[in-house]
């Protein structure tokens, strides 16, 4: 048992070290893809906390990404604050927004919650489209350019997103092993039963929402500085919200490593598709989404855990499970 644990930890450490030195040996475009993978690990894992562990399926988590991006951007551009301070502010703004939005919205469930979170994100997108003075409105916002040559800049963002991904993973790891984590899962499994066992459900739902906002906001800020130009229709996009959900579903909802696998697979795949069949890559993505939801809604993790399951009958059973 102890040995097993150590082996796992060693493997994990080795992986971190390998990823830590990896950029030194690869091209800028590959670094870029991996940076993007890390960013989506942050987003997917963060969504996993509210949508996966707590069972409150938000379709508006992009709003934290957008808020984070604009917070860092506005601070850097208008107040010339250092980047790191911007990121800290982004985390605070996202956390605070989640608190204010979460208390009323998390009373809703299922479809109503999905529509409400989507509605809040869209409303905010429109607000930023109209805040011309502050955010540049629909024309977007240009960040100051980071110093250094292309390679140095790509290192910078690789490591920023890498660290964010590790931090998010650690948060998920520790939260799910804490009493709060058990409260969240209990709420997902049966909210009424959780309530009669003494769990202040509103408190833990809101906490989960705030935690899911925290690093999403930071990632938004880092993303803005990375791509140097943001616009509301891009950073508040429903596509970002849905990507979080898809990646988690693909990897395995409510599991620690599911979001990692999902983010990796989908990001690499969509990159391959873009380079091969640019025009139809989103159509193929749509097709993959349909396939995943129908045939493997509990994701890759379930098959990893039990390899015997990898058979046609497993997929057929999944397909039949929810039919009318």
């Amino acid at each position: 048992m102890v040995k097993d644990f150590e082996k796992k930890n060693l493997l994990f450490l080795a992986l971190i070290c390998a990823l830590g030195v990896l950029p030194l040996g690869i091209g800028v475009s590959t670094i870029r893809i991996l940076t993007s993978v890390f960013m989506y690990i942050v987003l997917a894992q963060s969504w996993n906390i509210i949508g996966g562990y707590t069972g409150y399926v938000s379709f508006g988590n992009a709003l934290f990404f957008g808020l984070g991006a604009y917070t860092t951007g506005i601070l850097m551009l208008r107040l010339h604050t250092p980047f790191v301070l911007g990121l800290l502010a982004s985390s605070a703004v996202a956390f605070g927004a989640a608190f204010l939005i979460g208390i009323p919205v998390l009373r809703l469930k299922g479809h109503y919650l999905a529509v409400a979170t989507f509605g809040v994100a869209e409303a905010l997108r429109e607000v930023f489209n109209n805040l011309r003075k502050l955010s540049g409105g629909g024309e977007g916002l240009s960040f100051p350019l980071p110093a250094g040559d292309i390679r140095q800049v790509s290192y910078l963002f690789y490591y920023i997103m890498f660290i964010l991904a590790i931090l998010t993973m650690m948060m998920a790891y520790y939260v799910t092993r804490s009493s709060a984590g058990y409260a969240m899962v209990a709420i997902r499994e049966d909210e009424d039963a959780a309530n009669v066992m003494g769990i202040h459900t509103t408190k833990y739902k809101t906490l989960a929402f705030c935690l899911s906002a925290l690093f999403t906001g930071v990632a938004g800020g880092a993303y803005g500085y990375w791509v140097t130009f943001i616009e509301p229709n891009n950073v508040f996009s429903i596509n970002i919200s849905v990507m979080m959900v898809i990646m988690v579903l693909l990897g395995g909802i409510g599991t620690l490593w599911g979001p990692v696998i999902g983010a990796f697979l989908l990001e690499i795949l969509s990159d391959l598709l873009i380079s091969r069949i640019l025009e139809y890559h989103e159509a193929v993505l749509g097709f993959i989404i349909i396939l995943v939801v129908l045939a493997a809604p509990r994701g890759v993790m379930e098959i990893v855990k039990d390899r015997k399951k990898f058979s046609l009958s497993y997929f057929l059973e999944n397909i039949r499970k929810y039919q009318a």
Partner: protein
Amino acid sequence: MVFIQILLDGLLLGGVYAVIALGFSLVWGIMNIINISHGAFVMLGAYATYWITTRSGIDPFVALPITMAVMFMAGALVQRYIINYVVRAPASMTVTLTFGIQLLIVNLALGAWTANFRSITVPYAGARFFLGPFLFPYTRFFIFLIAFLLTAVMHLFITRTKTGAAIRATRMDLESAKLNGVNIRRIYIITFAVGAALAGAAGGMIAITYPISPMMGFSYLAISFIISVLGGLGSMAGPLIGGLIFGLIEALSSFLIGTGYKDIVAFTLLVVILLIRPSGILGREYY
């Protein structure tokens, strides 16, 4: 005067919105599925009308029933071979799945028809009539009438026909419906296909008045959300009244605060109604 004309324009537009939301709220209410691909179906309906009109030269209003028939078939196929397998699944799955369908349809359409805007030109495009000092373009006025007609037909279908009764029965008590011999799967196919046909009709109506492109659907999805929540899911009149109210609100807010803010008002309204009264302003307990 200008103010009243703006309200009238808003009402006319509200008719189209009502038809967009009619199919969406039907599927949501009966099958408990939020069909994210509804906007894509609207777009397909617009293109169907466009192609029928431009290729055969028949009047777009005549093309509407053909569009609806085509979309009915398309909807039936999508329900039978895709949606049917997630009908009992949680929202995370149904929403994601229909998002995937939307992505697939829109991007295939982009590939096939490019992102360029197209429009149908009818000889009577500019024709209008006056009622007192107020101006009514013929096309929009007809579309408004058709919206009423479709709502009325749907109301009769749901309340007066045997299939309509079975649809309501399925909604009210699934087990009882099974015990009465209702084939639930068939009911779902009909419901979704009718929803798609209505989306098609809405798309056709939009194609007559506005330029269309494969990307047009998404904003109509958002409108469907708002109107369904506004009107509630309990009746066929809900989307009509919700659509008219929304048309008015949109016209008013663009006039009073500015065009840029109308969507903020709309989405804020959506969230506020959900929080205060999730069953909608007109929502009923029973379908």
